[in-house]
């Protein structure tokens, strides 16, 4: 007797046929994708990858890069990052084979990237616009420019204008007042952005009085209802009314104001405020090649790109040749305000950020409840 001859040979059911068909289709699609992604078919245009923050930050860069693809016959891909230090850490891990060409970040993280060996100095011969950038917005180490900023961020106080009388906010020291008691103030943590520097500036005139600043932060603790590490949390808390005021930098307030929220952004007149600059950091041995990477940096720091970026995020350009359009001027720092800005000491910040995070966790966080 033949083996299997007694088996019921009705054939497969409709459902079994459907399942087999689906498996075959999925396998065919998967095989097609695998072939597409892994064969050595040359791409028609070189691709350059830039890591950007999402939302308005991305749109500002996308607007600024308008025309770049056509000018250099290339394709720009955007890698959405949450924290640029995470992206830099990823590139440090991928040092032998980077996947990103340019990372939008700040000078402090650039210093950490330099320690990881992934930063390419900006080549002045390939980036002629470099000479038009404010010197305070260049990170220069031993004569080489390792980072150049294409916009300023600056600290201010965002308030709910329907709950706080804006005329009361005449000084940074107002944050320590009873108007924000209890727990009606949002503060960034050192992990994110500059509470120690701004406190030191407010009470002692420079960013170097760190121990004294921590004592002042302890006094401020009863007012702090939110210690935040990202923009979204801060803006959501202010919009929802969980807090009435926020120590933040300008972009956090910009989006809320543009969306019609009852928010005002105030820089106390005549007082120093902490400022920071962001810009493109070039990844060493990036897949697009040094030439295209430098062309992208040159494009981003050009006056035209900086104006387009400024229109989206309301941050001051860093190129001296920029002419601010009249419709944009009310939303940017004035010349007088620029004079109040405290210059960033990137090396001091990078050297102490970890220590400040530790001190915040042990000295301030337990007081917040």
């Amino acid at each position, binding site marked *: *007797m033949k*083996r*299997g*001859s*007694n*088996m019921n040979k009705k054939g497969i059911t409709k*459902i079994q046929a*459907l399942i087999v068909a689906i*498996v075959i289709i*999925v396998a065919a699609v*998967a095989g097609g*994708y*695998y072939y597409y*992604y*892994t064969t050595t078919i040359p791409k028609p245009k070189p691709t350059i*990858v830039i890591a950007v*923050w*999402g*939302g*308005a*930050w991305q749109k500002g860069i996308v607007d600024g890069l308008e025309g770049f693809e056509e000018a250099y016959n290339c394709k720009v*891909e*955007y*890698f*959405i*990052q*949450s*924290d640029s230090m*995470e992206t830099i850490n*990823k590139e440090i*891990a*991928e040092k*032998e*084979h980077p*996947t*990103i060409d340019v990372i939008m970040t700040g000078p402090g993280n650039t210093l950490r990237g330099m320690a990881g060996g992934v930063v390419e100095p900006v080549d002045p011969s390939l980036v002629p616009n470099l000479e038009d950038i404010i010197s305070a917005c260049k990170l220069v180490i031993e004569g080489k420019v390792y980072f150049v900023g294409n916009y300023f961020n600056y600290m201010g106080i965002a308030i709910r204008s329907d709950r706080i009388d804006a005329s009361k906010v005449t000084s940074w020291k107002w944050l320590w007042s009873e108007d924000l008691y209890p727990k009606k103030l949002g503060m960034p943590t050192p992990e994110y952005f500059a509470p120690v520097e701004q406190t030191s500036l407010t009470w002692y005139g420079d960013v170097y009085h760190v121990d004294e600043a921590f004592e002042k932060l302890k006094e401020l603790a009863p007012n702090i209802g939110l210690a935040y590490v*990202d*923009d*979204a*949390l801060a*803006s*959501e808390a202010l*919009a*929802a009314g969980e807090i009435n005021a926020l120590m933040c930098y300008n972009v956090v307030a910009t*989006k*809320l104001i543009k*969306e*019609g*929220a009852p928010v005002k952004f105030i820089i106390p007149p005549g007082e120093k405020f902490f400022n920071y600059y962001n810009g493109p950091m070039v990844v060493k041995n990036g897949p697009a090649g040094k030439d295209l990477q430098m062309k992208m940096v040159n494009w981003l720091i050009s006056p035209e790109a900086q104006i387009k970026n400024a229109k989206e995020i309301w941050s001051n350009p860093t190129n001296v040749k920029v002419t601010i359009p009249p419709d944009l001027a009310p939303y940017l720092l004035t010349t007088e305000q620029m004079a109040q800005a405290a210059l960033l000491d990137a090396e001091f910040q990078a050297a102490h950020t970890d220590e400040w995070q530790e001190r915040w966790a042990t000295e301030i966080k337990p007081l917040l409840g």
Partner: protein
Amino acid sequence: MEGKISVYKICKIVVISLKLLTVGLLLMPPIVVATSSFNPTAFAPFPPRGLSLRWFETFFGDSGLISGIRNSIFFAVLSTALSLAIGILASFAIARYNFKGKNLLDALILSPIVLPEVAFGNALLVYFYYLKYYNHTIILLLGQTIIALPYVFRVILPSFYGISRSFEEAAMTLGANEIQTFLRITLPLIKPGLIAGIVLGFATAFNNFSVSVFLVVTSTQTLPVHLMGRMRIFLDPTIAAASTFVCLTMVSALIITEKLVGIDKLITGIRWR
């Protein structure tokens, strides 16, 4: 007697209240997210003060989000299929045979559950770069498969234990070989476990962030990684619109499957009416 009836009624009310509370707690987050996606303003009060489709417009116009969904579905389907294949074979071996290292194999397959995913993702990236292997599609696929495999395996293994060997022995007595027995007897009997494994494996892979964040590049960026990048910057309802779209798609697929085939029949082979 009347006292006993009162106690019964009270217990009934308590049980019904607990049921409603549980259902409410489970349903409230998706309801809030779905209503937020129709909010006309970026800062989304609840309940929304008006209705608008602007965030769906932003969502469909965001190529990054659309490619994120496409990549997530692609990698989730493939990694589920891979983990299903490995899980079925491993479960069959462990359930049916005794061999050296059986318990070790069981523990190894389940070990990704106890490993911190962040450490695992970083280790995987460093490992493949040490081997000078740079195909990010394959690396991400492997990462998601390893994460989904324990869940698929853990659901399928009890199904094998639940089948009496007498079915398989009877089939072989009647002339079926091992492969025919496995395909025509064993597999249909473990179908409920297979369906559950597919659902769990797909959900695990689709939702994965901690491993994927290390392994993605621009072309393979998955939806959770892309959403996290947006969420840390500004929490506008575009994210809610994306979530609503994905949920509606899944629910629609379930409804279509029920109408065409019947989910109960798909799982148990019986159409319950």
